[in-house]
Each structure stands twice: as structure tokens, then as C-alpha cells.
């Protein structure tokens, strides 16, 4: 039986879908069988990040309404042999087209076939969030080092715990090391202390994310990208490896100072 992880944040635009795409591709590259579920019904986007938008025939609503078999609706990512699949969101239906129970049994079914089921959650804390969280064993909370994002993440952590999703991890996304150095951005330690959940990784701001989204190729596959390196570390940590919490910054001296900020180096 695989593990279902919901990727969530509360606030929109902090990088949930980017994170889902990169963790999915990263785990598949490490030989795991992964199913990506776009739970943002009505606003389909994960397919774009994966570059699979032209291959979609059926979607999640077709599956839960029984119109099509689950295996027929899964879009295979050809870059990864038989290990990475996407279940697209519906684009025309509204966000209440899937019930919580339907979602729960869908995830259960996927867990039988895959090592990891990653659920890309819509923004907000309404029905779509409740659904995405319903079948999840654990959560990855994505946060930007900014006040509104940290605040919303805190709400989401509370709601996850209240719904018995307990083993939760934090990804600090879009950190700008040079701003942290100037004292103009929340530090890693600040965010971790405020939210008091386990840090899974820190992804630096990287223009290559925009470039890979333009191309439909997850950054995790880009060996020259700092963000890609951060996602590769995150994937190894999810598999239980003890990977040091290094910040992948441009400048070697920043790098060392940031390690000091996280408290992992003296």
C-alpha cells in the first residue's frame, strides 16, 4: 500500500502545483511509482506544469462518476517509463463535482497501485481542500517566507491536525537568500518556529522555475537549477534519507551563512 500526500498551502500562488510536479517527477526519477492527482477541479493546471496538457482524454470527474475506468483516465508521462501518471482535474465542472467520499475511495484505489499518490490541493480551505485532505496520510505544507502566506499556512496546519492528518512537513518556497542576508525577509528559523512543523526543505527563488513551466518540464530534472537541486533533496528526504538541509544558493559565502541561519553549521 502506497502513501498519499496532500500538497497544500491555504494561500494561492505560493507554489503548490510546482511543488507537486517536482516532487512527483523527482520521486519517479528515483524509481518510485507515482500518481499525481489534480484536485483543483475547475482550474486544471498540473497538466501544464507536467507538459501533459495535450494528452488528456478523461478526467477525475469521469472516473468518480463511473463513466470511465481509473486506468483509462491516467495519463502516462513518457519520460518515466511506467512510473509517473497524472489524473487530470476537470476543467468544465465546478469544484463540488467530486464528493469527499468519492475522493477518499479514489485515493484508496490509487494507493494500491502506486508507491506515492500526490494530491495537488486547490487554494483556500473550502470543499476542494477538504476533499484533497480526505484521503491523505500526510501533508506537505508549502509556504513563502511572507506574512500572509505563513498566516494561511498556520490555519491549514490546524485544519489538517483537526482532521487527523498528523505527519506534516513544511517546504519554504521562493526564499531569497540575499534578502534574508539584508534582514529584509523572514529567516528559515522564523518560519519553522512560528509554524512548529517539521522542515522538509527550502527551495530558493529561481528564474529557472518560470523557464521550466514555460516548457512543461519539471525543474527537478534540470541539473543546473538551484530549485531543482532543492527538490531533489526533498524527494530523497521523503524516502527517508538523511539529507543535510543545505540551501542551494548561487554564492558560496551566502551558502555558508545560510547554513548557519538554519543552525546546521557553525
Amino acid at each position, binding site marked *: 500500500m502506497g502513501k498519499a500526500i496532500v500538497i497544500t498551502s491555504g494561500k494561492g500562488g505560493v507554489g503548490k502545483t510546482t511543488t507537486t510536479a517536482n516532487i512527483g517527477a523527482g520521486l519517479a526519477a528515483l524509481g518510485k511509482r507515482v500518481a499525481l492527482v489534480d484536485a483543483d477541479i475547475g482550474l486544471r493546471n498540473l497538466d501544464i506544469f507536467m507538459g501533459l496538457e495535450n494528452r488528456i482524454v478523461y478526467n477525475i470527474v469521469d472516473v468518480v462518476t463511473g463513466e470511465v475506468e481509473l486506468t483509462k483516465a491516467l495519463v502516462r508521462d513518457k519520460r518515466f517509463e511506467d512510473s509517473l501518471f497524472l489524473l487530470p482535474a476537470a476543467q468544465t465542472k465546478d469544484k463540488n463535482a467530486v464528493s469527499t467520499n468519492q475522493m477518499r475511495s479514489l485515493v484508496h484505489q490509487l494507493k494500491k497501485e502506486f508507491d506515492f499518490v500526490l494530491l495537488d490541493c486547490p487554494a483556500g480551505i473550502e470543499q476542494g481542500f477538504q476533499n484533497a485532505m480526505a484521503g491523505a496520510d500526510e501533508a506537505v505544507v508549502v509556504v513563502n517566507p511572507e506574512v500572509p502566506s505563513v498566516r494561511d499556512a*498556520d490555519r491549514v496546519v*490546524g485544519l489538517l491536525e483537526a482532521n487527523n492528518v498528523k505527519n506534516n512537513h513544511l517546504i519554504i518556497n521562493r526564499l531569497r537568500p540575499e534578502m*534574508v542576508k539584508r*534582514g*529584509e*525577509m*523572514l529567516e528559515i528559523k*522564523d518560519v519553522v518556529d512560528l509554524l512548529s512543523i517539521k522542515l522538509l526543505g527550502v527551495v530558493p527563488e529561481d528564474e529557472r522555475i518560470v523557464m521550466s513551466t514555460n516548457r512543461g518540464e519539471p525543474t527537478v530534472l534540470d541539473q543546473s537549477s538551484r530549485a531543482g537541486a532543492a527538490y531533489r533533496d526533498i524527494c530523497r528526504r521523503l524516502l527517508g534519507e538523511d539529507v543535510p538541509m543545505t540551501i542551494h544558493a548561487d554564492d558560496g559565502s551566502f551558502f555558508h551563512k545560510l547554513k548557519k541561519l538554519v543552525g546546521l553549521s557553525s
Partner: protein
Amino acid sequence: MFDLRRLLGKPTGSREMARERLQLVLIHDRASLSPELMDMLKRRIMDVISEFVVIDESGFALDLEQSEDTAALISNIPIKSVKRSAPTVLGGK
């Protein structure tokens, strides 16, 4: 907020402000209970207290009061009379 460094004319980055603002905002957010939870809490408190004293249920008030860095539940429970014997079933319901 009282900030010694600002008073001493030392420049403070916006990081420090972000951290301080979040600390306060999160205390408030975490303390807020939904109306459903407040009602549930009210009923439970009423049940327990009613085992010992007869209360005026219409006058029962329970409020969440928040100041800058603290949060407290404030309750006013008017008593009609005190029961003579100990409750038969403790922690009932």
C-alpha cells in the same frame, strides 16, 4: 510596539517586523474558536456545572476575550441554588 533598537536609532529590517506581526496574528488566529465549537464547549461546561449547582441557563455567558498577546475564556454563570448532595454520576453524559 515598543522596540528598543528603533528607539536607539538602529535600523531594523522588515524581517523583524514580519516576525513580530506574525507572532501576534497567530496567537489571535489560533485562539479563535468556530461558533459551533463555542456552543459545544458551552453545553459541556453547563452540563458539568449543573451536576453541582442549579444554574440559570438563560444567563449563562461564555466569551473568548483577546488582548494583544493573550487570549482567555471569560464566563458568567448565574447560580439559582446549590445542590445538597454530591452528584451521583461524575463526569456524566
